């Protein structure tokens, strides 16, 4: 009983942690959308900024990855 409760708590916690990925998704979408908006206004400058775009996406995604990590740790490691 005690173990089952802990199991349940783990799964619920993992599910809650997965919400963090939604935030990362919003952030990445925001970056990509803003990049596109800027790129359409000034297409000639867009090509030089793709590296910045990917770095920004990677940094925004990093925080989502932490929730993913928490979820995985809750599921498999704790």
């Amino acid at each position, binding site marked *: 009983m005690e173990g089952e409760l802990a199991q349940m708590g783990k799964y619920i916690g993992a599910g809650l942690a997965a919400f963090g990925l939604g935030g990362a998704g919003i952030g990445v979408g925001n970056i990509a959308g803003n990049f596109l908006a800027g790129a359409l206004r000034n297409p000639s400058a867009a090509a030089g900024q793709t590296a910045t775009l990917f770095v920004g996406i990677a940094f925004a995604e990093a925080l989502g990855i932490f929730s993913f990590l928490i979820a*995985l740790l809750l*599921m*498999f*490691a704790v």
Partner: protein
Amino acid sequence: MATEHGAAPAVGMPQLDTTTYANQIFWLAIALVAIYLILTRIALPRIAAVLSERKGTITNDLLMAEELKSKAKAAEAAYNEALAQARAEAGRIVAEARAAIQRDLDAATAKADAEIAAKLAQSEARIAEIRATAADSVVAVATDTAEALVAALGGRADAAMVAAAVAGRIKG
């Protein structure tokens, strides 16, 4: 699929199975060293050589193109010059021909003018002669007529007086 390879189905994440870490890291290190050696010993120098060779070739080709372009420009200039010369020559020839024609024309005109003038003078001379003869004839006729009139009127005409009178009349 789990049963195929005989191993038990994964319990939890195989990624968190620390017993396999040493193995993975060992082989990964070997793979990375292999890739590094392949790249630095063979691939990268080769590609760098090809790229620089291509750059050289392209530069050479561009230089050659530049040279050919300048040659073409020189040829065009020469052509234009030849064209201008030919035009000048043609103009000169035309001017010469025109001058020659003008000269001939002038000569012919002058000749014709001279002939006309000569003929005019001749004709004037003849007219003057004719006029002179006509005037003489008038004097003679007048004298004769005057003498005849004097004779008919019974007088005796003094030829000298008659001539003087006629001359006076004609003059008057």
